[in-house]
């Protein structure tokens, strides 16, 4: 047995270990990447459909369209994908899916919201994807949102009708506290958003606040611009309010335009 206390042995051991572990991890990551990508792609489709109200929910549970059916349901459920190019408070260009894919060669629903937020921060234009579908014979528009909770990123999809009234919401998070902030992806929290308005009667954007000490815990009042907060998850709730206000406001010009046209 070699003397394991010698400096030369320690250095060699460390070097070999780093090479072995490094290549093992790199190999695992590289060989599993296609599967992981595919899973993430399906999850996005499931989330968008969920926000539209297309899901296999039972009483109290959250069930997405199953993985073997999701591609087919997505292609029929989402009737149109459009991309809005946004710069300095205005929408400068509206693109159809084909136009966008010709220029960027990715599907609009795969647009990385985080990257687009960074682009906006750098003063560049950003792409805002919007997915159209039908709910109770009316068109709904699903928009992605993204923000920060207590520990890490939170994101979601919100379905709106033409008056910017919420017709469905899905939230998810990367690392919120289980039992507290992580409950933003529970039915009882997400369902509260249904029917809430984003605009005042005069058409000014107000957003929805996740409010503590709400007088309306069963959430029957739909024009108070508030939903009931989660116990012990103040900062995550504030994050949800903030991302709704910030990200959905970007779509306001599109909806105003829609109203003027009709």
């Amino acid at each position, binding site marked *: *047995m070699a003397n*394991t*206390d010698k400096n030369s*042995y*320690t250095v060699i*051991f*460390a070097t070999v*270990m780093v090479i072995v*572990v490094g290549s*093992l*991890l790199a190999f*695992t*990551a590289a060989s*599993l990447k296609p*599967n*992981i990508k595919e*899973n993430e792609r399906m*999850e996005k489709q499931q989330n968008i459909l969920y926000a539209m109200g297309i899901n296999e929910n039972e009483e109290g549970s959250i069930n997405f369209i199953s993985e073997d059916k999701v591609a087919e349901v997505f292609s029929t459920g989402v009737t149109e994908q459009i991309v809005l190019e946004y710069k300095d408070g205005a929408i400068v260009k509206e693109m159809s899916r084909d136009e966008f894919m010709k220029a960027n060669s990715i599907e609009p629903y795969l647009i990385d919201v985080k990257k687009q937020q960074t682009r906006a921060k750098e003063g560049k234009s950003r792409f805002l994807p919007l997915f159209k579908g039908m709910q109770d014979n009316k068109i709904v528009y699903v928009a992605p949102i993204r923000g920060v909770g207590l*520990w890490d990123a939170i994101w979601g999809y919100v379905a709106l009708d033409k008056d910017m009234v919420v017709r469905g919401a899905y939230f998810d998070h*990367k*690392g*919120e*506290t*289980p*039992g*507290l902030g*992580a409950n933003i992806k529970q039915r009882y929290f997400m369902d509260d958003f249904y029917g809430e308005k984003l605009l005042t009667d005069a058409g000014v954007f107000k957003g929805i606040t996740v409010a503590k000490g709400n007088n309306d*815990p*069963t959430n029957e009042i739909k024009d108070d611009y508030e939903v009931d907060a989660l*116990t*012990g998850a103040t900062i995550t709730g504030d994050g949800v309010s903030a991302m709704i206000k910030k990200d959905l406001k970007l779509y306001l010009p599109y909806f105003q335009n829609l109203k003027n046209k009709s």
Partner: protein
Amino acid sequence: MALLSKKDTKLITDPLTDNNPITIQVLGICSALAITAELKASIVMSIAVIFVMGFGNVVISLMRNVIPSKIRIIVQLIVVASLVIIVDQVLKAFAYPLSKTLGAFVGLIITNCIIMGRFEAFALANKPWRSFLDGIGNALGYGVILIIVGFFRELLGAGTLLGYQVLGDPITKTGLYAIGYENNGFMLLSPMALIVVGLIIWVQRSRNPALVEEN
């Protein structure tokens, strides 16, 4: 012949009672505070830790004669971190919904001091099979406390167990809530986990005075 010798059985049963990692060795408190607000998270975390500790202990034990003592802590850290990352990647590729549930725990497993503690205290000096049993035993001991704490925090804090409303509906006032019972929202906050763990330590030591340190 019994499946495990008497000495081996002790490796599993000791950490469950008189040498519990949380209540006696006071290790792994951080994750016990963080994730016990609901029972389901406690159970998931327990299973994940059983897996990582069992295999981590075996790997370290197999390497025990070649690890340079000067950098042994770093080596231990690399072993547990790689194990956790590989498991996380495999789950992401083949069991995506499960990996979403585990997402928040991955970081907590790596930093769990019970794991490093057992590597250092046991696996470095013992053969693989005994190390495996020791890892499983300690992870079970950790899990038992986690589940007890999670049970009380979820029941008293939210009135639910595994998400089911066992005490009635607090908003429509049915079940216990009809006679004026209220959830104690305080139970959902981390400090209450410490108090529950304290109560468990109290019960355990008053049942077995041999565990009380003398001053």
